[in-house]
């Protein structure tokens, strides 16, 4: 540590030495300390510049500085996140200056597509999150940051496995079949996901309305998430490091039958000779039996290390950071690791030429990431673990799940998946003449994703082993050429931008598989050891050519106009349908800036905004419209050889083109009490036309789907945000609070003449299409039987739709539209309370109005398809057959031949509204004065500590995303995590 300090001291000296002191007659040596007005903490690295001269200094590690300056001159003090302060110098050489944090966010600059603008001048709907809003929470991924902190952005943790799926929807689902994911842009380069170390983030902006997103044309319809990473700060070298250690556990387990009860249930339903009396006695006394939940679940441990250095001179700045994350999941053997390195450089080569370079390299590794919760929840407690313990062959469930032993699978099989990412981004900026800049930006995203699997033959009797290696490499490149003119003419301010952009993506895949290994010792690393082998490869490419223009004009910051136009040509569509045109316009009026408002001192801002625009969606895969042949790989000749076959694949759909979203937005921004309270209100409407609809082909034509441009969806809603510092600056306790609420209503307006569209039966557990797309209803509406009661023999009674009568045997005509998968309202409430060196953060997230079809419960409480028996304790103990008073029965009879169980019945539909205490953290900072080394912040926090919900499943938020929205087919819940953290700022 001493060496480190020495190094820093040297660097510091060098830096100080580089600041040449000029002694003049009227000069004086001024020195002092700069502190935070609230905390009284010294501020390190404050820029101190002598006004009118180009020289200055910065504060040292104790917030101290000294500078030679003429008496009567002015010092300009600036520091990121603080209000810039000017100090007039008099005869007193001792300066103790307090700086105030900039809570007046109106003067903030926000990033918009292809440029930046003052937040106060924004005409569109943009949600902005700065690093300050999440710095107190141990976030592991960007989606954690967006969740609940941005109005109009619904973030759903689709599964809770480390590195698992997250669904992000900006203002609802706009596309019916394909990609409603927003466009991600990291430092100006389009990205396939949000693979950025959260601590590298300076800010995230979410562009929501057309005036903001139309600049992204064909890819903007689902909203745009702009991520800006940190830049190096001029001045003293800053070193920061942090360590977070977390412990994760499952929040809620299912109450399953114990081995003894299960054994009795087996004898009741499968026949009394299923479990012998002696064995039953062993289950009763606990000498036998398996608790699969106990066996498959564990306490996960996560370790998150971050280290960064930032600094530089006025001309050359750097930001370097590294992150190492290692997580074990709450399910056995599941692991996730991520390592990231980022280097951001800014080089001002001449006054008119600046080079920005951003390099990000990362590796992530996931081990045994596929955990089938349903298999172990449905595995019988009444069995032995091994079929043949000597040979190590695991036993398959003789009574319930038809899948191989989940414990054996996880212990013996291996799934390893790696992702290597490299993102390089270079931006050359030229100041051509006053106000005119030209930038050429080139970006490259390289992703390599190798996966390796091995399946042992020991997972059950007579199983066959197999292995695979697969590698997918994708290269995305983008070239953006931006000419921007930005100038004020008196009270008029004009920003005009013209951009030409080309981008392309190329993916290549290679894979080998082997079946029936002769010696399993080789695992997945010796394909030649396998008796049967197959190989595959593939290629895919797409490109986009775009031109765009934007004009932003404002008068006195009072009236603002924005107009944009973009044209995109996409390779995914065929000639004649290739080019799309996307215009938008927006107006804003800040009433507070009017002369007649001068005398009032309530509003510092009162801005009305309105916008309209057309944005597109091209989110279909490459070659989707071409109609290529499909390949069969399974052998049909009864051999273990590979016989590749070709047959009809997709239907060629040359007429398919853009889907267009017509977006309307109105907003009001108000700032009162000198910016201590800010309100923002938005209303929007999005009409998506020419939907890229995946039309279901009749099964008599072979089934499957094909693309058409048909139909219309409407999304409308309101968003409300308030952020405030309710306690004034003199109070020793500071409280920052920010609350947002979003409402979105989704409605299908037209399906090109069809009344409704249902998909295929995808569960295989005995449920129909489950969801329906029907005119007048939202996307993600469920299509279910109406369950009414049990009949006198304990069979389920469903309501007939034709006449309302009750039946045990409903037909498909009795399915009705009910419930919705997407939340109607989402809320977020983030609070930070500070007192002296203590900080307390409480973050609450809620979603209201969504339903989940709890197919997990259906599978646990009914004998369905692959889950042949019941596992849920209540399904047996509170089932019709068992309860004495039949009115108390919670579940239907399991033995009545008249009883029919349907997973697609509203019996299993549950209100999944929830409120989650997403984060609560308490931290204490030991200032450098005390530790002598660095500011040390110790924190303890809990994520997902408490969930308020009526949902009976494991987690109301997650669901199984394979085919449906909002269907819980054994989805992986988000764990409860306790995190201990230490943060050091040297």
């Amino acid at each position, binding site marked *: 540590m001493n060496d480190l300090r020495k190094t820093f001291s040297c660097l510091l000296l060098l830096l100080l030495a580089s600041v040449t002191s000029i002694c003049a007659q009227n000069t004086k040596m001024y020195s002092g300390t700069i502190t935070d007005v609230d905390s009284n903490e010294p501020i390190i690295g404050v820029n101190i510049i002598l006004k009118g001269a180009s020289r200055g200094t910065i504060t040292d590690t104790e917030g101290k500085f000294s500078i030679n300056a003429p008496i009567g001159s002015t010092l300009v003090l600036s520091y990121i996140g603080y209000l810039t302060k000017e100090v007039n110098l008099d005869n007193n050489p001792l300066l103790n200056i307090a700086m105030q944090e900039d809570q007046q966010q109106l003067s903030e600059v926000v990033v918009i597509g292809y440029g930046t603008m003052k937040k106060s001048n924004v005409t569109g709907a943009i949600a902005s999150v700065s690093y300050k809003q999440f710095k107190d929470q141990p976030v592991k991924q960007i989606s954690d940051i967006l969740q609940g902190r941005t109005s109009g952005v619904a973030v759903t943790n689709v599964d809770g496995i480390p590195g698992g799926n997250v669904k992000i929807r900006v203002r609802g689902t706009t596309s019916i079949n394909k990609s409603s994911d927003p466009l991600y842009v990291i430092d100006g380069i389009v990205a396939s996901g949000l693979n950025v170390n959260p601590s590298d983030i300076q800010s995230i902006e979410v562009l929501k309305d057309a005036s903001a997103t139309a600049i992204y044309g064909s890819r903007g319809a689902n909203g745009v998430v702009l991520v800006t990473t940190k830049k190096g700060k001029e001045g003293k070298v800053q070193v920061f490091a942090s360590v977070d250690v977390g412990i994760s556990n499952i929040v809620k387990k299912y109450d399953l039958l114990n081995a003894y009860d299960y054994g009795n249930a087996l004898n009741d339903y*499968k*026949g*009394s*000779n*299923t479990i012998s009396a002696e*064995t039953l006695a062993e289950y009763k006394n606990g000498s036998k039996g398996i608790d699969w939940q106990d066996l498959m679940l564990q306490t996960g441990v996560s370790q998150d290390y971050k280290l960064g250095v930032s600094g530089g001179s006025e001309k050359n700045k750097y930001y370097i950071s590294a992150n190492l994350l290692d997580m074990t999941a709450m399910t056995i053997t599941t692991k996730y690791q991520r390592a990231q390195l980022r280097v951001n450089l800014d080089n001002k080569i001449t006054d*008119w*030429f600046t080079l920005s370079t951003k390099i990000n390299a990362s590796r992530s590794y996931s081990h045994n990431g596929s955990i089938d919760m349903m298999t172990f929840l449905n595995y019988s407690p009444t069995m032995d673990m091994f079929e043949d313990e000597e040979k190590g062959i695991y036993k398959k469930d*003789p*009574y319930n799940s*038809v899948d191989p032993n989940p414990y054996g699978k996880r212990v013996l099989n291996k799934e390893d998946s790696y992702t290597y990412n490299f993102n390089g981004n270079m931006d050359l900026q030229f100041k*051509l003449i006053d106000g005119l800049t*030209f930038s050429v930006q080139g970006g490259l995203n390289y992703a390599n994703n190798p996966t390796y699997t091995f399946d042992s033959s020991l997972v*059950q*009797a*007579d199983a*066959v082993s197999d292995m695979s290696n697969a590698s997918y490499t994708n290269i995305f490149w983008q*070239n953006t*050429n931006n000419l921007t003119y930005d100038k004020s003419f008196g009270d008029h301010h004009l920003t005009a931008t013209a951009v030409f952009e*080309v981008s392309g993506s190329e993916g290549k895949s290679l894979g080998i598989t082997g*079946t029936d290994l002769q010696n399993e010792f080789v695992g997945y690393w010796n394909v030649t050891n396998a008796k049967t082998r197959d190989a595959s490869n593939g*290629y895919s*490419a797409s490109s986009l050519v775009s031109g765009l223009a934007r004009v932003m004009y404002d008068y006195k910051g009072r009236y603002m106009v924005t107009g944009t136009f973009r044209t995109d*040509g996409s390779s*995914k569509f065929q*000639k004649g349908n*290739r080019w799309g045109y996307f215009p938008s316009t927006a107006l804003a009026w800040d009433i507070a800036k009017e002369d007649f408002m001068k005398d009032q001192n309530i509003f510092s801002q009162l801005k009305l905004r309105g916008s309209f625009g057309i944005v597109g969606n091209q989110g279909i895969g490459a*070659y989707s419209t*071409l109609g290529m*042949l499909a390949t*069969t790989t399974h*052998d*049909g*000749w009864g*051999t*273990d050889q590979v*016989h590749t*076959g*070709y*047959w*009809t694949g997709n239907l060629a759909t040359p007429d398919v083109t853009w889907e267009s979203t017509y977006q309307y937005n109105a907003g009001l921004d108000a700032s009162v009490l000198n910016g201590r309270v800010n309100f923002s209100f938005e209303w929007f409407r999005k009409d998506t036309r020419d939907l890229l609809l995946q039309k279901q082909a*009749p*099964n008599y*034509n*072979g089934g499957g789907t094909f693309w058409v441009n048909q139909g219309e969806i409407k999304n409308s809603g309101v968003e409300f945000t308030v952020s405030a510092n309710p306690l004034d600056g003199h109070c020793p306790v500071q409280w920052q609070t920010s609350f947002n609420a979003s409402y979105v209503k989704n409605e299908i307006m037209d399906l090109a003449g069809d009344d409704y569209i*249902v998909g295929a*039966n995808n569960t295989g557990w*005995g449920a*129909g299409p489950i969801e329906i797309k029907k005119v007048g209803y939202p996307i993600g509406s469920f299509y279910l039987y109406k369950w009414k009661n049990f009949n006198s023999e304990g069979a389920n009674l469903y309501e007939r739709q034709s006449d309302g009568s009750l039946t045990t*045997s409903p037909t498909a005509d009795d399915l009705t539209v009910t419930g919705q998968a997407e939340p109607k309202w989402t809320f977020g409430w983030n609070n930070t309370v500070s007192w002296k060196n203590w900080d307390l953060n409480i973050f609450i997230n809620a979603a209201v109005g969504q339903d989940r079809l709890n197919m997990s419960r259906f599978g646990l409480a*009914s*004998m*369905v*398809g692959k*889950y*042949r028996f019941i596992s849920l304790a209540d399904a047996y103990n509170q089932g019709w057959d068992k309860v004495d008073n039949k009115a108390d029965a919670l579940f239907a009879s399991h033995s009545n*031949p008249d009883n*029919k*169980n*349907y997973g697609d019945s509203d019996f299993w539909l549950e209100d999944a509204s929830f409120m989650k205490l997403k984060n609560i953290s308490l931290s204490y900072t030991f200032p450098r004065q005390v530790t002598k080394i660095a500011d040390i912040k110790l924190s303890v926090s809990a994520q997902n500590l408490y969930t308020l919900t009526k949902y009976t499943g494991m987690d109301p938020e997650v669901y199984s995303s394979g085919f449906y929205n909002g269907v819980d087919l054994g989805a992986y819940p988000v764990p409860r995590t306790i995190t201990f953290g230490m943060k050091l700022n040297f």
Partner: protein
Amino acid sequence: MTYMKTIYRVLRNLGLVLLPLWLVSCEDLLTEDPKGQLAVVNFFNTKGDLDQSLNAMYSILANEMYANNAVGFDAVSGDDITTHPASNKQSIREVDSYNISNNNSWADELWNRRWKVVKAANFIINNAERTPTTKEEINKALGQAYYWRAYSYFYFVMTWGKVPMVVKDEIDYNMPLATIPEIYDLIVSDLQKAEAMVPINYTEEPYARNGVNIAVSQAAVKATLSYVYMAMAGWPLNKGTAYYKLAADKAKEVIDGVKNSTYNNSLLPEYKDVYSLKWNSSNPEVLLGIYYSRTGTITNATLCDFLADMAYGGGWGDTNGEIKFWKDFPDGPRKESTYFSKIILMSDANDDNPVLRDWWYDDPNTPRTVVAPCFMKKVERAGEDYFDVSDPSPINQNGEKMHQVIRLSEVYCWYAEAVGRSGEGDKTLAVSVLNEVRNRADGTASNRYSTSMSYEELAESAYNEHGWEIAGYYWANIATRARDMFRMNRIKDHFEFRKENPEIEVASGVFRKEAIPVTGVWSDSKMYFPYPANDVALNPNLKN
């Protein structure tokens, strides 16, 4: 000034770098080039393409028939086989109790998968002709495609009746339902084309292996045609004698071909070998099969047909035998290999000496849920030629027993029945082949049948023999017991019998009856499945 010059230089150089990029014709950049992928227009360019189109069709056949919800469970309407009264057997139970709903998820699966085969066949039928190879090679491929299309339509017409007639790869939301005679016309015409096109025998792998035809050969087509004529002769077309005669003729062509060794088929001497793993890849009795491999494409048949309280890892209990049919089944080696001769219950399985019990074993103090005989034809334990009922150890759900589409012994029965029902033809040959079947079943040259039988007796004897030959077998075979009953319009009789559900004496003083109640009133609509709701939603012509 130098400042401006430098800017100019930088811009110029930059321009030079970027210009080529900008000048790349946008349209060139934006035109897709799906490297490595094939389109219909550049396929069927070589004999290899033809082989690969067949690979696809057989791959789809095997995969779309791998489990009983994919193929065959419709056969539980027959009097030989039934299912479980509760458990997860809702879909199949609806068929067994003659009350199928349009939301039956297995029926949906069955429908979808059968149409996939039609699609794969149409792909070849519509395109193969332009392959630049010999007429013989093209015909070989076309003939097989015609056969499997006919096979699929026969499935449709027997299960759903009227269906859309899809012969081209086009999407049509308004396709009308073709009538039953129209569909039979297509089946017969496809089979006649196939008959002329497919080879007598294949010689090359994968079309033949171990001296056995794997792909569709001439004898298989002729046999199928024979059974299709029998079906046309019976319900609902009731074309009668003329078609029985056609059926007899086609069956006789197969029999003659076997006798003069044109076809390499013969009856296995012992019935226990018929469904054994021993002969799985070289069974000379099988005219056509769907082949599987444990290390390739597997079937999920091994556990389907025995009960959940039985050992051997526990059955899935999808089906079990009907008691009356078991009772009437003549004793002998055939019955021994058709059913589990003895069973081990799960609770007895862990003992060192597991108790072998009769299927009807039950104890009022510890009652069983289902007490019924179980079929053993599809049960297999890896590496064992014959399944051993006295070994309770678990078996894997993944198996490789071939699905037997047509066996020679069936053709013998059809011939005898067709001769009998047409009331003319070679009774001597008919009785002789029927005796061949029965003698093997009895394990002795019992020669039970003689030419002194009336044509009617001959027909009924052959009908019964066929029922016993394929009892409980529903794995892609064209002639299940249910189909025999269907064409003879005897399903309704069995419906009444099941409603009555009498106690049957299965051993001295031991009475058993069926577990699934059958109720309601017979209607001929019960002969068919309703159209799956998903397709009805797309095409209103499918509304019954």
